Every structure is written in structure tokens, then in C-alpha cells.
């Protein structure tokens, strides 16, 4: 493993964007960062800046208003980048499937690498999903 891949997978920086979720998954992502689950011990840090981020965590379904913002954030992230969708509604539309303003899952707007199920997804599942994504990041480097 070269040094770049090693440092990327050792300490991935997350960017969180909430599309149209109910906040349930968003607060579970935050809960994963706080003492009980504490992903910071793995070097995972929540970032506010897309230009510093390796992994984009998205919650909620895309809609007509926010899909441009989402694509903009995705485009600002440097390669290699990964997209992890948290929650059922971000994966397929879920309970908001028939809502008139939603476009469906996040994969209608940007390519998605990992889907995390759950409504709301549990912090354990979120950590699991991010670790799965890191495997992909590792494979990307080689």
C-alpha cells in the first residue's frame, strides 16, 4: 500500500449533507461522532469543507431544489471520493416515495458507493458503512 492510500484510509474525513431527510439519520451521524460510538478514535473527522473531504455522507431523498447543491458539493470534492447514503429514503425514496417534490434516491443525482439501510440508520450501521467504503477507497489506490 503506498503512502497516499495508507493515509487516506487511516484518517478519512467526512462531509455530511442533509438533502431532505427527517433529521433522524443526521443526528445519528452526529451521535456516531460523540462519546458512546466515537469514530474519531479511527481518525474519522467530520469536516465542513467539501474540498477537504474524502467521504460524502448524504441523508434523505434528492428533490428539485437541492439536487444542484448536492451535485455542486460532489463536484467540489477532490478525487478519489466516495459517496455513502445513510437511510432508506436516501437509498430509494423510502417513506417519501410518493411525495410530489422528491426525485427519489440520491443515485438519481450522483453515483453512490455504499447504501446504509435503516429508518433511521443506527450509528453502528453508519460506522459499518463507512468502513465498507474505506475498503473501496483502498482498492481505488491500487
Amino acid at each position, binding site marked *: 500500500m503506498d503512502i497516499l492510500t495508507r493515509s487516506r484510509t487511516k484518517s478519512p474525513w467526512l462531509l*455530511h*449533507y*442533509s*438533502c*431532505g*431527510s*427527517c*433529521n*433522524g*439519520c*443526521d*443526528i*445519528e*451521524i*452526529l*451521535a456516531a461522532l*460523540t*462519546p*458512546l460510538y466515537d469514530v474519531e478514535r479511527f481518525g474519522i473527522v467530520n*469536516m*465542513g*469543507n*467539501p474540498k477537504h473531504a474524502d467521504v460524502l455522507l448524504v441523508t*434523505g*431523498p434528492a*428533490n428539485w*431544489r*437541492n439536487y444542484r*447543491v448536492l451535485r455542486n*458539493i460532489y463536484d467540489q470534492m477532490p478525487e478519489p471520493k466516495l459517496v455513502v447514503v445513510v437511510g432508506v*429514503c436516501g437509498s430509494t425514496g423510502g*417513506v*417519501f416515495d*410518493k*411525495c*410530489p*417534490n*422528491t426525485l427519489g434516491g440520491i443515485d438519481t443525482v450522483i453515483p453512490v458507493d455504499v447504501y446504509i439501510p435503516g*429508518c*433511521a440508520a*443506527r450509528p453502528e450501521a453508519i460506522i459499518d458503512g463507512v468502513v465498507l467504503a474505506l475498503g473501496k477507497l483502498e482498492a481505488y489506490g491500487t
Partner: protein
Amino acid sequence: MARTAIPFGPQHPVFPEPVHLKLELEDETVVGVTPVIGYMHRGIEKAAELKTFRQNVFLIERICGICSFMHSLAYCQGVEALTDVEAPPRARFLRVFWSELSRSHSHLLTLGLLADAMGFESLFMQCWRAREIVLDISEMTAGHRIIQSTCSVGGVRRDINSEMAKEVDARLRALQEMLDRSISPVFLHDYTINRRTEGKGIVPKEQAELLGAVGPTARGSGVTVDIRQTGYAAYSDLSIDPVVETAGDSYARTKVRVRELSRSVELVREVLAMMPAGEILVAVSNYPEGETVSRVEQPRGEEIMYLKGNSTNYLERVRVRTPTFANIPALLGMLPGCELADVPIITLSIDPCIGCTER
């Protein structure tokens, strides 16, 4: 002095949700602010007309994951009024139980985020550590950490047995101790928090009334309003004294939340002690007919839900007025005159919930 326009959001490190405020600055001082909303609009009100009134419970509680139980409570109370059904006494107490649990976890969450916004990292972690106790109780009693999904038309779907009640009581005592020892004193007496919030984002009492502020935002300005006093669910059997502060600044709103939090934990324990025995769910045999307005006190303030039925399985109209929507005018009154660096703290002091606002 030339004016600068600063886009605040929609993706911003301080907020978990997309808030977009167009700020107009003169030097470092905010002189104008325009909110731009709609980034989270899903169209839940329309979707609620396409699902049956029983299915709607699952949709309505996903308006917002933080006060999810209270949304479903407002909806179920409304449908019960339209179908002439009354929830049994034990169900009414259980509804207060989960409502107050939601309130305590929501207040801990927002206090933590406020601490995070001012860079007080250890307090943020302490708040969220205490919050995990509430989430554990929620998982134990309802089966899920945040979306309890226990409210149903005609009552509640889960009961609490005596062993569970004992365990909940023990955990709440631990939480109370944690609050008294390491959270409340910091928010009430710490120099940093005082300096960052005192005198920031003032809304005088008259203005708060005029702009229709609700919840802790109104109570922080000295407006005595708490919908729990109307006695919905089992609140008529409990003593509810609105927590009121008079300064009207961010510090006052924070103090209101800290004191409400302790009261909420006490209320949960009171409810557990005085819960009557009996059934928890009654059958609903007829369809909703007529129109009604249902009001509940959420962590962020008063929610109004208007429901209209036409004797079919589907509701004709579901309209939700959420507390943050009512507090946005007050926020726009707070921001002009403040420094750019105080914008996140003032915005967080009304505890914005965009998922609710835009539905």
C-alpha cells in the same frame, strides 16, 4: 461603507441541515438578512392526502426525526377528535412519557450543538453523552432510538411493564445527576457561555408577541405560553409551570432550555409513578369526518395541525404549522445589528428545525 453579501448555507458546518440565509454586511455587522428556504421540501402534506389515515401516522412522524413522537401525537389526537374516539387513560400517560423523553433528548441535542458552535467541544460531548441515556430508554421502551413510532390512532402501541419502569427510573436518576453535576451548572454559570450569548440576538417581549414567536424563543422573552397547560394527553393531571426568562437574548433562551430539561426528566419520572393500569389502545371503527385543529407543545414550541376528513379512508387536507416556521420572523428580527461571528449562535438559539419547517 460598501455592503458585502455573504451566503450562509445551504451547506454549512454548524448546521446539520440546509439553512440558507443571505446576509448583508457592513464591515462585520449584519444589516440585512433574507432567508431562502425549500431545500428540504418533500411535499409531505400532499403525500398525506394520498395515504390512508392510518398509514399517515408513519409518514407524519417522519416530518422530523427529533420531535417525531410529538408530530404523530398531534396527528393522532386530531384524527381521534374526527372519529369520536378517546384514547384510554394509560395511553394518555404513555404519550406524555414519550413526549417528555423526546423533549429531553431534543434539548440536550440543541444545547450540545450550541456548545459546538461556540467551540466548547467538551461540553458538546458531555451533552451528547447524557443524551445517549435518553436514547437507550427510548430503545428499551419503544424499540428504536429516535423514531419511537409508538403513537397510534386510538392510543399507543407499546406498553411499559413494571420491571422496565424500574429500570427507566434508575437511568433517569443517573441522567438527573449528570445534568445537575456537569451540564446545568456549566450552561448557567460558565463565563465563556455567558459572554458568547448574553445580550446577543435580543427580542423584546412586545416584539416576540407581535412576531408570533413560540416555545422557548417566546418564553425567553418573557411571554408566558406553554401549550401543555391546555391539558392535552395527560398533562391536565400534571403540574406544568412554564419556564420563563425575561432578558430575551440567546442566554435567556438557553437558560429556558436548561431548566425545561430538568423539569422534563422529573415529569417522566412522575408519569411513571402515577400511570394508571388498563388498556392502551381502543379500536377505531369509523372514518374521520369534519375538521379539527390539534395543538401540542414540541421542544421548539407550539405545533398546530389542521385536519379535514370527508368520511373516507383518506383525509382531505393535512396542514402542519411547525414551531420553527413561527420562529423564523423572530430570528430575522434578532440578526440585524449583530456581528457575523455571532450569527451561528443566534440562529441556533431558536433551535431551528428545517426538516419540520419545510416538510
